[in-house]
């Protein structure tokens, strides 16, 4: 703690911060551009000037950049000083000499940091009457728009893109008054995090191109706190709607999870919500016409629910919906709709987490690791945001050195100068090159079984009690010793693994390493990537997989099979799924989009997507997080799955709910029934929570057009929709101050219209939100002793001439079904391919691009060859879950024949 004097008033602030952070944390409005809470200071924009005095006697003082000044005891400064104020407004005036008068057509307008800072400094009149500098804009792909004239040369974009996210293709060119921020030539931005440029850039140079298709100002959006649905990490997002259409996804700060950044899949993958392929009406296939109303549907369903009913839960449906289904069909009739191997891997993960042998890190904690070992994951493509965290982690060791020579952690320019290209240890074992390889001190391109064996060898090196790996390949022991030594020396080692390669042994091996590394305070971190946004939640319900052979005998031939938000045909082979579906007399599907499974259903019930429903998801670290309905869809059929399912239960039992069922009620019942969910009910607030007797608005107070926008439909202004399920209201009415963090529907503060206002919601700049970051960590129940994951070393991988091992290779764009329906993402998704190494290509006598027939369990695919020289022999990589390549039962083997 240090005492500083701002305009002669003493304040106690945290030492080690810079003066700008301290002032902002104290609530002062001090303008800035180049400083970013996650990226530190470089002192480039000169906007944050304050007057600094030698001591309390000094009256003259000198101007300094507050972002470059360390906080120390007895520091005297002035924000209100006239010279400092004049300086700050002149900096803006000078930036404005070249800035176009563009706000009216600029996508940034209304959430523009430059606008806010201009108003804050009081620069209101432009004296510059000459021609402005202009640039050509570039085509940067379907996701990001470029409008270079608006640039104020703060350098945030390149600092984020290159330094923070490791991008290669965005840079700064030219010099003096003509610097240009863009690519060397027009082209798609390659980095997985390019969408953050729209938020990092304080002006309208980089903006969300998908928003342009249905442009809406921030003040006109109805917004709700939400959770990304496109991978297992559970990044917090804000989803915005207008005219019944989802229009924008932005980052929602959560200091423990995603911080300030999300990946492009999460930001741009929302368009499926607006898809024409949405199911709009309940459908009864045997009825003419198929589309029916609710009464007819219920009349038809009533007899079907009384027989033997089997329910199939979904890893992409909320806890509420899965639980409502389980309540409807009964515990023993509830199955999980995930492939058998996934279920097996999830079981291993749960048992490892429950032993308490490892520390399950939040994404923020992974950033604090000093040595990282990645076993069998291509993070940039399977859990993108985590790759960004790992990128920060490898800097920790070199940065440590900086501390010893008194360079503060926020001094980005000095740190990067010092660190240069030095990196902490990072080891990656994966069959092909990944983007993180450039950071790695060791990369091992080996087959999944060999990855597991390497893992076990490391565990054995760290803890000789662990079983030794028989028949270890030549240099493997050497690698294991190298990695083991580094991990042993590390203060805070991190092991990352996951389900991507569909190999349970890899997860076991990773757990064995983490467990061998230490106990108690020295527990190592084990981060696990799981398939979907609620895979963890579903797995915690302990329901067997529907594709499990023993499950088949249990289900027998049911009267009715209810499939919840799940396209079963995409997760396994058609024959296997058909066999299950054929057993049932009636198939009911609840989903939001038409898909092969809904096509097979006898009854289809339309449900709301994440933006039309409330729910709770459990992410890969076991954090339960709530997402909230953004708007009330005009189509009354689009209801939450859990609401339909609760209705069906009442229908069958002939009961009625005295009160409206709320998501909180469901989660509470869930936690009562299954103690592993204790605490999850804290994540989803009760519907009657009020702040000062008020609900929390989803719309900013400037929301416009309320009496006009629906007048063409109904002039008599119906009552605005009410939300009986949550503490949020669908209008602008409600409590205007700081809300509880999980209920932040948007970030705004007087004078701070852009997302930079988030610091007003943080206890200290860059720290936790007021009231704690959202989400409740589960996995508090430790059953020590179960160490079965220690065993199961697979035999050595033997290349098989006939039976190739197929490797599912995830892609940021394309491997997740829902996001792939967005136009821009579909455009950037890879075409189907089969990857083999050069030797294998030679032996098959094919070149890059020649067509190979890939036969997996009798199903034949014709795919162009992609040569990846690093691939292990007799393994073939297929892009995972691409639309054209769904319905493969993983892990898979197959034959490759020249076509």
């Amino acid at each position, binding site marked *: 703690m240090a005492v500083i004097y701002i305009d002669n008033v003493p304040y106690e602030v945290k030492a080690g911060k810079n003066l700008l952070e301290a002032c902002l944390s104290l609530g002062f409005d001090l303008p800035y551009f180049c400083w970013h809470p996650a990226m530190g200071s470089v002192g480039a924009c000169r906007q944050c000037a304050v007057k600094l005095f030698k001591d309390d006697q000094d009256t003259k003082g000198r101007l300094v950049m507050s972002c470059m000044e360390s906080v120390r005891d007895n520091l005297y400064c002035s924000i209100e000083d006239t010279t400092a104020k004049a300086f700050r407004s002149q900096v803006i005036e000078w930036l404005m000499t070249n800035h176009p008068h563009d706000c009216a057509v600029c996508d940034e307008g*209304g959430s523009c940091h430059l606008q806010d800072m201009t108003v804050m400094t009081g620069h209101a009149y432009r004296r510059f009457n000459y021609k402005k500098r202009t640039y050509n804009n570039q085509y940067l792909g379907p996701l990001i728009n470029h409008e270079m004239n608006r640039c104020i040369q703060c350098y945030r974009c390149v600092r984020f893109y290159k330094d923070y996210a490791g991008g290669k293709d965005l840079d700064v060119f030219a010099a003096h008054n003509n610097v240009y921020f863009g690519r060397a030539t027009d082209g798609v931005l390659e980095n997985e995090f390019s969408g953050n440029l729209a938020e990092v850039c304080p002006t309208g140079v980089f903006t969300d191109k998908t928003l342009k298709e249905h442009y809406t100002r921030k003040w006109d959006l109805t917004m709700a706190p939400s959770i990304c649905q496109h991978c297992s990490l559970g990044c917090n997002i804000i989803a915005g709607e207008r005219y019944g259409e989802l229009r924008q996804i932005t980052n929602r700060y959560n200091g423990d999870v995603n911080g300030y950044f999300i990946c492009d899949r999460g930001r741009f993958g929302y368009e499926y919500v607006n898809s024409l392929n949405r199911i709009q009406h309940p459908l009864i296939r045997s009825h003419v016409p198929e589309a029916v109303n609710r009464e007819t549907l219920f009349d038809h369903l009533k007899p079907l629910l009384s027989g033997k009913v089997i329910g199939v839960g979904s890893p992409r449906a909320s806890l509420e919906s899965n639980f409502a289904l389980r309540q409807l069909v009964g515990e023993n009739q509830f199955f999980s709709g995930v492939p058998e191997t996934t279920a097996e891997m999830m079981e291993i993960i749960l048992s490892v987490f429950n032993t308490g042998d490892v520390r399950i890190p939040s994404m923020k904690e992974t950033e604090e690791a000093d040595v990282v070992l990645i076993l069998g994951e291509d993070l940039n493509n399977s859990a993108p945001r985590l790759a960004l965290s790992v990128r920060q982690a490898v800097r920790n060791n070199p940065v440590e050195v900086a501390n010893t020579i008194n360079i503060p952690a926020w001094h980005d320019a000095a740190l990067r100068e010092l660190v240069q290209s030095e990196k902490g240890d990072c080891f990656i074992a994966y069959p092909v090159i990944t983007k993180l390889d450039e950071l790695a001190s060791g990369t091992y391109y080996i087959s999944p079984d060999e990855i597991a064996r390497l893992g076990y060898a490391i565990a054995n090196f760290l803890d000789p009690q662990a079983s030794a790996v028989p028949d270890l390949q030549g240099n493997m022991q050497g690698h294991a010793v190298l990695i083991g030594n580094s991990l042993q020396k590390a203060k805070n080692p991190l092991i990352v693994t996951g389900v991507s390669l569909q190999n349970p042994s890899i997860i076991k091996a990773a757990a064995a390493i983490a467990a061998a590394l230490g106990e108690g305070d020295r527990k190592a971190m084990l981060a696990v990537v799981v398939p979907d946004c609620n895979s963890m939640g579903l797995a915690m319900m302990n329901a067997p997989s529907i594709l499990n052979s023993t499950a088949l005998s249990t289900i027998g031939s049911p009267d009715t099979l209810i499939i919840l938000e799940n396209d079963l045909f995409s997760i396994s082979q058609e024959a296997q799924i058909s066999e299950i579906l054929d057993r049932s007399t009636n198939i009911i599907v609840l989903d939001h989009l038409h898909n092969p499974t809904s096509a097979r259903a006898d009854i289809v019930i339309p449900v709301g997507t994440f933006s039309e429903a409330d729910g709770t998801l459990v992410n890969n670290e076991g954090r339960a997080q709530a997402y909230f309905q953004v708007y009330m869809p005009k189509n009354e059929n689009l209801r939450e799955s859990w609401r339909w399912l609760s209705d069906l239960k009442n229908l069958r039992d002939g009961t009625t709910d005295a009160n409206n069922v709320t998501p909180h009620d469901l989660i509470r019942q869930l936690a009562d029934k299954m103690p592993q969910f204790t605490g999850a009910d804290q994540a989803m607030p009760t519907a009657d929570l009020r702040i000062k007797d008020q609900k929390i608005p989803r719309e900013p107070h400037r929301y416009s057009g309320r009496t006009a926008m629906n007048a063409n439909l109904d002039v008599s202004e119906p009552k605005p929709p009410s939300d009986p399920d949550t503490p949020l209201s669908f209008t602008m009415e409600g409590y205007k101050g700081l809300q509880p963090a999980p209920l932040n529907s948007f970030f705004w503060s007087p004078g701070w219209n852009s997302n930079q206002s988030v610091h007003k919601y943080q206890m200290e700049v860059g720290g936790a939100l007021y009231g704690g970051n959202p989400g409740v960590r589960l996995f508090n129940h430790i059953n020590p002793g179960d160490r079965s994951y220690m065993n199961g070393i697979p035999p050595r991988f033997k290349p098989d001439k006939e039976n190739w091992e197929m490797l599912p290779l995830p892609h940021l764009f394309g491997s997740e079904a829902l996001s792939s329906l967005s136009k821009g993402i579909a455009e950037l998704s890879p075409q189907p391919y089969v990857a083999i190494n050069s030797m294998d290509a030679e032996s098959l006598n094919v070149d890059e691009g020649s067509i190979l027939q890939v036969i997996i369990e009798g199903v034949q695919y014709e795919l162009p060859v992609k040569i990846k020289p690093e691939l292990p022999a007799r393994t073939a990589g297929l892009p995972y879950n691409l639309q054209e390549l769904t319905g493969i039962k993983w892990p898979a083997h197959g034959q490759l024949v020249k076509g």
Partner: protein
Amino acid sequence: MESLSNRKKVLEQKPMNFWERLYLPAIFQGMAITFKHMFKKKETIFYPEVEREFSENWRGMHSLKRDEQGRERCTACGLCALSCPAEAITMIAAERQKGEEHLYREEKYAAVYEINMLRCIFCGLCEEACPKEAIYLDGPIVPANYLRKDFIYGKDKLVEDPINIESPVAGN
């Protein structure tokens, strides 16, 4: 009860005398005033055949302006809708495409622009807020109508006629 203002006048109600009870003098007095007015200048006009001259700062129906080259000035920035106290304006923005430069002045335009005239209070704040001199309340009185939906004025009714292009600000 005591008077509150001390200005209470107590009126005495005297019985009317004979002349008064005849009412004739009062009737003739009234008729005289009426006849006098027949020869005075009329206060009313024959609206809608005749219209009064509007004052300089009269606020009537909105019109969405075009520039000298006939292009729509509105860029759908949303400031009018934002400033409207009756929340009567709504618009849908769109990007100008290549080849539409002669239609819209800047990169963005309002694909839909609607004012709910039943809600509008003709305060003129939209006009004041517009940074593009695109909306003026310089039109006539908004006519009466039978159906409520006919009070939703879209671009068809609001956008200035392309042929009749005048300087946007009257008197400028």
